[in-house]
């Protein structure tokens, strides 16, 4: 019997190792798996490479993980936003590395890893500094830049409904990068608001098929990053 249920967020992230590449779902606050990230702070793995669109906000979630000194490199498209303070400070002090990737290229590199495609050509960045040093090729008279896939050891993802087989649905724009990250990581760890029985999700409505998911942990009343920031919260 396949059962991917994990008893707790702590158990779900206990094997994340020092130096691991970790994808974290979410676009800004929406879809950010706060409970899994805080469990990773408690767990303490260091020298992580994090992949997310942003670098977290305030002093909770992703920003707290970075502030705790556990992250040596960030791969993202937009490292500064109005509530982002931790990353900009460390970056200016030379204490964290940044690989800047355009948002669509970031998504496609993650998708490619999950799809078994080691590289692809895209028009994005042609003629800009972000294309410097990269292989370019012409197709039908137009230039394209080669981009490699982006794999990870772990993905931390938040979803709305999951079953024990790992079938997932999301809530609105909280979906963003998560289905792609589930495909691209060796071990995909999901926190779900509702854990239902197999068969309770209509197969027509499954967004992430369970084959891409390794662990599911129920977090019935997840906190939202925006709420925590409005409260001025910090972690730990």
């Amino acid at each position, binding site marked *: 019997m396949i059962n991917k249920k994990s008893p707790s967020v702590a158990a779900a992230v206990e094997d994340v190792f020092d130096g691991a590449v970790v994808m974290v779902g979410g*676009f*800004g*606050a*929406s*879809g950010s798996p706060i409970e899994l990230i805080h469990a990773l702070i408690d767990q303490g793995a260091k020298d992580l490479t994090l992949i997310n669109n942003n670098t977290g906000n305030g002093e909770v979630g992703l920003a707290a993980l970075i502030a705790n000194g556990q992250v040596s490199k960030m791969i993202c*498209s*937009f*490292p*500064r*936003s109005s509530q982002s303070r931790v*990353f*900009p400070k460390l*970056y*200016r002090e030379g204490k964290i590395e*940044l690989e*800047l990737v*355009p*948002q*669509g*290229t*970031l*998504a*496609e590199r*993650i*998708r490619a890893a999950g799809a078994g495609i080691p590289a692809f050509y*895209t*028009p*994005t*960045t*042609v*003629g*800009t*500094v*972000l294309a410097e040093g990269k292989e370019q090729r012409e197709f039908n008279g137009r230039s394209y830049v080669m981009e490699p896939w982006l794999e990870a050891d772990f993905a931390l993802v938040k979803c709305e409904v999951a079953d024990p087989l790992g079938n997932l649905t*999301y*809530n*609105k*724009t*909280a*979906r*963003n*990068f*998560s*289905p*792609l990250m589930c495909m691209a990581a060796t071990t995909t760890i999901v926190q779900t608001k509702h854990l239902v029985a197999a068969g309770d999700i209509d197969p027509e409505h499954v*967004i992430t098929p369970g084959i891409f998911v390794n662990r599911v942990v129920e977090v019935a009343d997840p906190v*939202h990053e*925006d*709420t925590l920031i409005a409260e001025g919260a910090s972690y730990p």
Partner: protein
Amino acid sequence: MSTGWTREQMAARAALDIPDGSYVNLGIGIPELVTQFVPEGREFIYHTENGLLGMGPPPAEDERDLDLMNAGKKYVTTVPGASYFHHADSFSMIRGGHIDVCVLGTMQVAANGDIANWSTGAPDAIPAVGGAMDLVQGVRNIYVITQHTTKTGEPKLVEKCSYPLTGPGVVSRIYTNLAVIDVTPDGFQVVELAPGITFEEVEKSTGATILPAK
């Protein structure tokens, strides 16, 4: 002396050029105002690259859904017929040429259509690109709405961008407070002047050769 169009009038003028039934992506700032000026009898469908087609206006404060936001991370709503999708699908819509019009703000536009709107290139600046480079390469019509000059009076329409490019040769039309301007093989060309604005005023505020309206 006239200062030309207001932010709202610039957005309204841009909206006039968007055909009925267009799929439209709007940048942050003045472009967001386009939604308020959809011409009578037309319907635009708004795409926001974080994963929503059919974006509606901002919600009332007590009707916010924290999981429903736009690419600028502001809370939004959906219109009937909206859909959600992941980022790879969203950027397939962009890169695959499925979005008809993108309206962007900018720091600089050059006479050959180059646009620079993501970084000043300053050594202490933290580079942040988001979806800007995907949008300018993928969307068929790139329109720019911008004040004609910076707050300190420097031209934003220039011969060559001094800031790092977002994309080369991609802009087709520019709406400023002074005029509507096309990017043509011969460089900038005025299409229409704002009320009370002369061509000479536009020429004086532009950092490149500009041709008068035909």
